[in-house]
């Protein structure tokens, strides 16, 4: 259908220090072929024309890979489609007259910048704590020097496909960053290149996660359910094993 009218309820907040509220907008002429973000583009064009402030929302590649877009849609991070980031959600999901509530990621460690835009720099700091292999450009051996079993490489790739959007955190009742952190720890634990630092890495990243104010994992699995890349919580189990092993035997 090319002519839907929707009732939108959108979180509006001027800046980090102001308080925010849900504001109602009625939007006409929404096409089912639009993406969800294109629907918001249409709303913003209308708001600008009417002399009102457009709704700020983060987005960039609109192909589901950069991890910039967010949005809690009717209470679900990235909306109703499984394995789909908000930018890939399309309006054929909705029908004429539907009401859609749109909110930002909510977590103490994700302060709101404006409207639907939040500060996710805490995730970068978790990566800084150890989400890497310590090697400098120029010193690498031949790429085929070290065979890696296909199933390890595939499992590592599953973990590495994390786009760092933060949906796992936004949907977790504890606002835990476990799935995000585990995805990196797990990727590098599965690969021989990550082995020399695996203990230090597990300890440092988990500690940083705590220091940023993210909660702990209590196996709700909401993260897995909303992850646009469908990353499995089995990686959290691996992270926990890595962490406990490291805590028991680490020399660093």
């Amino acid at each position: 259908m090319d002519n839907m009218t929707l009732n939108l309820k959108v979180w509006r907040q001027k800046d980090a220090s102001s308080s925010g509220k849900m504001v109602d907008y009625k939007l006409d002429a929404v096409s089912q072929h639009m993406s969800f973000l294109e629907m918001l583009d249409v709303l913003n064009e209308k708001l600008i024309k009417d002399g009102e402030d457009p709704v700020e929302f983060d987005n960039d590649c609109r192909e589901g890979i950069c991890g910039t877009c967010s949005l809690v849609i009717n209470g679900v991070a990235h909306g109703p489609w499984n394995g789909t980031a908000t930018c890939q959600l399309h309006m054929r999901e909705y029908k004429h007259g539907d009401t859609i509530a749109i909110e930002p990621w909510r977590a103490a460690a994700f302060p709101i910048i404006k409207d639907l835009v939040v500060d996710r720099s805490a995730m970068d700091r978790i990566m800084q704590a150890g989400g890497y292999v310590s090697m400098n450009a120029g010193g690498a051996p031949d790429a085929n020097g070290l065979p890696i079993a296909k199933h390890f490489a595939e499992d590592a790739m599953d973990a590495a496909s994390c786009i760092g959007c933060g949906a796992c955190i936004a949907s977790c009742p504890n606002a835990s960053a476990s799935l995000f952190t585990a995805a990196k720890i797990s990727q590098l634990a599965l690969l021989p290149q990550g082995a020399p630092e695996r203990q230090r890495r597990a300890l440092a990243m988990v500690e940083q996660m705590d220091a940023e104010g993210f909660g702990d994992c209590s196996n709700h699995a909401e993260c897995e359910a909303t992850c646009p890349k469908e990353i499995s919580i089995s990686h959290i189990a691996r992270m926990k094993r890595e962490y406990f092993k490291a805590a028991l035997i680490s020399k660093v």
Partner: protein
Amino acid sequence: MALDSKVPDGPLAEKWDKHKFDLKLVNPANKRKYTVIVVGTGLAGGAAAASLGELGYNVLNFCIQDSSRRAHSIAAQGGINAAKNYPNDGDSIWRLFYDTVKGGDYRSREANVYRLAQVSNNIIDQCVAQGVPFARDYGGLLDNRSFGGAQVSRTFYARGQTGQQLLLGAYSSLMRQVEAGTVKMFTRHEMLDLVIQDGHARGIVTRDLVTGEVKSYAADAVAIATGGYGNVFYLSTNAKNSNGTAAWRCYKRGAFFANPCFTQIHPTCIPVSGDYQSKLTLMSESLRNDGRVWVTKKKGDKRSPTQIPENERDYYLEERYPSFGNLVPRDVASRNAKDVCDDGRGVGDTGLAVYLDFADAISRLGEHTIREKYGNLFDMYQRITDENPYKVPMRIYPAVHYTMGGLWVDYNLESTIPGLFVLGEANFSDHGANRLGASALMQGLADGYFVIPYTIGDYLATNGVSGASPDDAEFKAVEEEVNAGIDKLRSIKGKRTPTELHRELGLKVWEYIGMSRKEAGLKKALKEIPALKEEFWSDLKIPDDKDNLNKHLEFAGRLADYFELAELMAVDARDRKESCGGHFRDESQTEEGEAKRDDENFTHVSAWEYKGEGKKPQLNKEPLVFENVELTQRSYK
């Protein structure tokens, strides 16, 4: 001005080694005394910032995204080329060099391309060591696939997410340097101008996109790695925030802009569906390994694809180019798609699409294998179109994807402004008039990991510590100009939004400077684009707030630059009366409708020099000398 490419003497294969020896070094203990600004955190910028940090320089690294992990390199799907020859199928550094020069239709610099092919192998080693999970076979060794314009399998990949994995590799190295304190990261900061002192690039002026603060940063050298300008077309495969502003403002400060009309139209993208469309989505070229491209033989045949019998299908690429088939280079594939659609044989509701059909591959290899290779791409296609490509053929159409043109650089990747280096897609250097698939990732990482650490060291060792400070008069003057520019946009208070105006500009650029260009159209472009620019400056409407996050204010600034850039593209396209690679001049084609070069008159780089507001830019030519390959009419038949 005579352009000095600074290509070293000596045999092609020895130039880079010799040059590395000739370059001056900065003593390890002195490196921390130097500050380098790197703008952009994609493959080129991220790799450069990390590598310079590893060497011990002080690096200030800027990006417009909320995290350096989100640069648009992340969206590259298919793979990265290297001359490893692991499949034993006849590849070599020389062949990768040759394919790239030929693919670029002989409009790139031989020595740069050869160096690119040389360091390609180091890149794969580097990325594997970082923990990039490339695809592997059952023996545990790396797997390769084929890409357009090559007859060997040299493309390394990580499912359909190779750009993501390579970028996250660079990002992880970058995060390690941030932790080590060598790199200071500035996210949500947009470079709005370049500061020149004593004729050298000494810093930049940025706007903090959250607080609106306009501020200067000083350094001993500046490296721009801000990507291409494909969004000048409004609809492109680029991310919404990708833009040409940093490069354009360097142009206006004196850096020459080379071959602006060389833009790449990618053949396999999901077609446009409506006016509200905000961007186009690429379907990786790797799909052409297993997908067969076809349209109907009959014009206006509206039957569903599964009802069209084999003998009524035209597999036009396999037919016309038997030796390369569906894997012809991008420019050739795109032009052929346009031709069959112009002929009334396009498919789908709009008639502006061709089929990419996997039925044969699925029956030969099984759905499981196809899913393993391309699963995420098929899923993405289905989400956007609501059609299942395992059952019905994909519909695809060309879309703007990459810009080969960019700021002119010499062999050291230094622009015409001393101390201003340009990396990755933002420079013009390696792809000539057409980039081969899986070569953008290669170039970005080559520039960042393996070229700039050497060449910028030579610049710093030669020029010493600059002593520049943001408090210097030159910085204050540029800051004032930047503030005035922002206020000018805010003061228009007209009726039209940046999106409306941008869309209108995009249609004109696509029409006149798109897949084929002709004299009459380019003349129209040069009339209509400036007229639309006038309208922009008199009728723009944006939210007023400058001290807070205001994305429409950001867009308006970038759009202002696109109007000027589009004009330069038209000027360049009009000047280059030959066809070559992605630049197809209607007036210059072979009898078979292929691009016809004019080597006698156009074997050069067109480097445009800014002469001031309202003045004609000046053309400077860098002659291209081919000592190692013979210029021939490209043939993929």
